[in-house]
């Protein structure tokens, strides 16, 4: 039997019921990864360790031990999350040979559940990009149509899940980096509330916006993963001390009375016709099944993208200051003095998009421009937060497309960075306000490419997102429909 096509919950049940061993499942996944290697979804493999963990799980289960749901289940981790003893490259030449000396908190949590980590996923360099084309190790391809991008920056994570190379993957989302690739690859991706999941051990892009979240093939699998990784972490001061529900058991079977907000300004941002049709059909579906559709206003939404690029680049320029060729990472050769070492290392080590963001960040933070750009953007962020707070007084969730288009062709936008930035127009506002949001497949375009629907929730209310997304998936069809 081919176990790779099962969902996480299905394969977990079979492993726990001893219908199949974790070792056999892991071996099938490894074969699948090798057979689909040309997608370039993974930067490195962790097969030896994966097999060891799988065997360990099998021994414990055979001995009658009660293990958590993720035990023995193969997963993939984005290559900006530290996993002890693995390379954590951020898809950058700067960290090409960097080997993690500790586990990120999310990895400690997954390891405590005996999840089987099979590899580290390709991504846009330092998580900066929307197509995975900014990887120093070559682009990852879309698993449905390999002439297209998988989205980014967690392109490898989404591709790997979509290509049945694992049952779940971790990604990170600073402006849409989990949701946009989930949408492009036809999988489910959740960006948790800011503070829901610890960022300890995750290479920072923009600390005030970054969150780690799961990508899976089903909504319920996603809920299982979030329960496993969420929670307060004393090592991470922005993690929130808010109890973690069992997201799976909190999923409700009815959506009657739930209020779904539609902001007309969201629809004015522009989207492809196939996307618009799919989104309107989804709204109709929810309405017919008892949800209430409410018109709301997000009057400053068109400012979000600009505020995002200022704030995220400012933080990135500061974070990437640490890559100087001294303590770890790449060091250039043939330097004259210390400053020359810094300059040569950074010039040779960083890719084009990363340099662009460092320059922009240093501009908006520099003397004479700080008030006009950075401070202004932070004030616009406060305005947007107010808009969302007002909107959430009238509804439980907000609905929009995840991206204005389906997955685009490789190279189509790589020479126009503004066009590329516009791919994130629907996802970026969510990071700016700190809300949780989920993307799940809601239809296909005329070429058979998946279209993602985004639901945005109130802070710490991932549960309602899962209920609505699961209802759609179970009654109207998700990834495989």
């Amino acid at each position: 039997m081919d176990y790779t096509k099962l969902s996480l919950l299905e394969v977990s049940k079979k492993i726990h019921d001893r219908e199949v061993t974790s070792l056999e499942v892991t071996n099938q996944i490894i074969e699948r990864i090798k057979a689909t290697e040309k997608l370039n979804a993974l930067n490195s493999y962790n097969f030896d360790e994966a097999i060891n963990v799988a065997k360990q799980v099998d021994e414990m289960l055979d001995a009658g031990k009660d293990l958590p749901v993720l035990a023995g289940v193969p997963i993939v981790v984005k290559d900006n999350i530290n996993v002890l003893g693995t390379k954590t490259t951020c898809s950058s030449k700067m960290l090409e040979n960097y080997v993690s000396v500790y586990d990120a908190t999310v990895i400690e949590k997954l390891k405590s559940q005996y999840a089987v980590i099979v590899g580290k996923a390709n991504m846009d360099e330092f998580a900066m990009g929307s197509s995975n084309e900014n990887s120093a190790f070559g682009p990852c391809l879309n698993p449905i149509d390999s002439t297209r991008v998988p989205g980014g920056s967690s392109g490898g994570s989404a591709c790997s899940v979509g290509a049945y190379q694992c049952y779940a993957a971790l990604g990170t989302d600073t402006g849409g980096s989990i949701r946009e690739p989930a949408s492009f690859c036809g999988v489910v991706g959740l960006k948790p509330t800011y503070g829901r999941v610890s960022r300890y051990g995750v290479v920072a892009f923009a600390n005030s916006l970054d969150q780690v979240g799961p990508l899976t093939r089903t909504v319920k699998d996603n809920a299982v993963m979030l329960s496993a990784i969420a929670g307060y972490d004393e090592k991470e001061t922005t993690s929130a001390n808010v109890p973690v529900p069992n997201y799976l058991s909190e999923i409700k079977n009815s959506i009657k009375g739930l209020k779904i907000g539609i902001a007309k300004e969201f629809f004015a941002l522009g989207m492809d016709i196939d996307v618009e049709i799919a989104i309107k059909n989804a709204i109709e579906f929810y309405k017919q099944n008892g949800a209430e559709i409410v018109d709301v206003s997000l009057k400053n939404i068109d400012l979000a993208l600009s505020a995002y690029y200022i704030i995220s680049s400012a933080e990135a320029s500061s974070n990437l200051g640490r890559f100087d060729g001294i303590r770890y990472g790449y060091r250039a050769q043939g330097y004259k003095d210390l400053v020359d070492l810094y300059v040569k290392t950074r010039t040779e080590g960083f890719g084009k998009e990363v340099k662009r963001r460092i320059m922009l960040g240093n501009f908006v933070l520099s003397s004479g421009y700080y008030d006009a750009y950075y401070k202004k953007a932070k004030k616009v962020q406060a305005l947007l937060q107010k808009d969302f707070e007002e909107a959430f007084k009238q509804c439980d969730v907000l609905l929009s497309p995840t991206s204005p288009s389906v997955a685009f062709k490789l190279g189509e936008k790589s020479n126009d960075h503004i066009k590329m930035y516009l791919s994130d127009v629907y996802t970026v506002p969510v990071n700016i306000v700190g809300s949780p949001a989920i993307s799940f497949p809601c239809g296909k375009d005329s070429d058979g490419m998946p279209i993602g629907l985004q639901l945005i929730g109130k802070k710490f209310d991932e549960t309602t997102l899962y209920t609505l997304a699961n209802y759609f998936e179970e009654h109207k069809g998700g990834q495989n429909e």
Partner: protein
Amino acid sequence: MEITTELVEHLAELSRIEFTAEETENFKNEFEKTLHQIDMLEKVDTNGIELKLNLLDAETEIKEDIAHQSLSKNDAIKNAPDSFGSSVAVPLMVD
């Protein structure tokens, strides 16, 4: 606003990144496009808006000042491009 070559060179220096003349010119053009996009914020009235430090409405937990076991010296220098004993080695800075 107009982007000059001098401004790009100044930012490159702040960023500790070197650009060729061609790259500087390309960057200047791209930067103009980026600023054209983000300059839309200029018109927004933000008078009286208070800046928030934290996206969460709750207070951030403050940790007790207690030392915990951290990375060992060996682990901390494992990824150093050059090391000497248990120290990171850097180029000679003073003669």
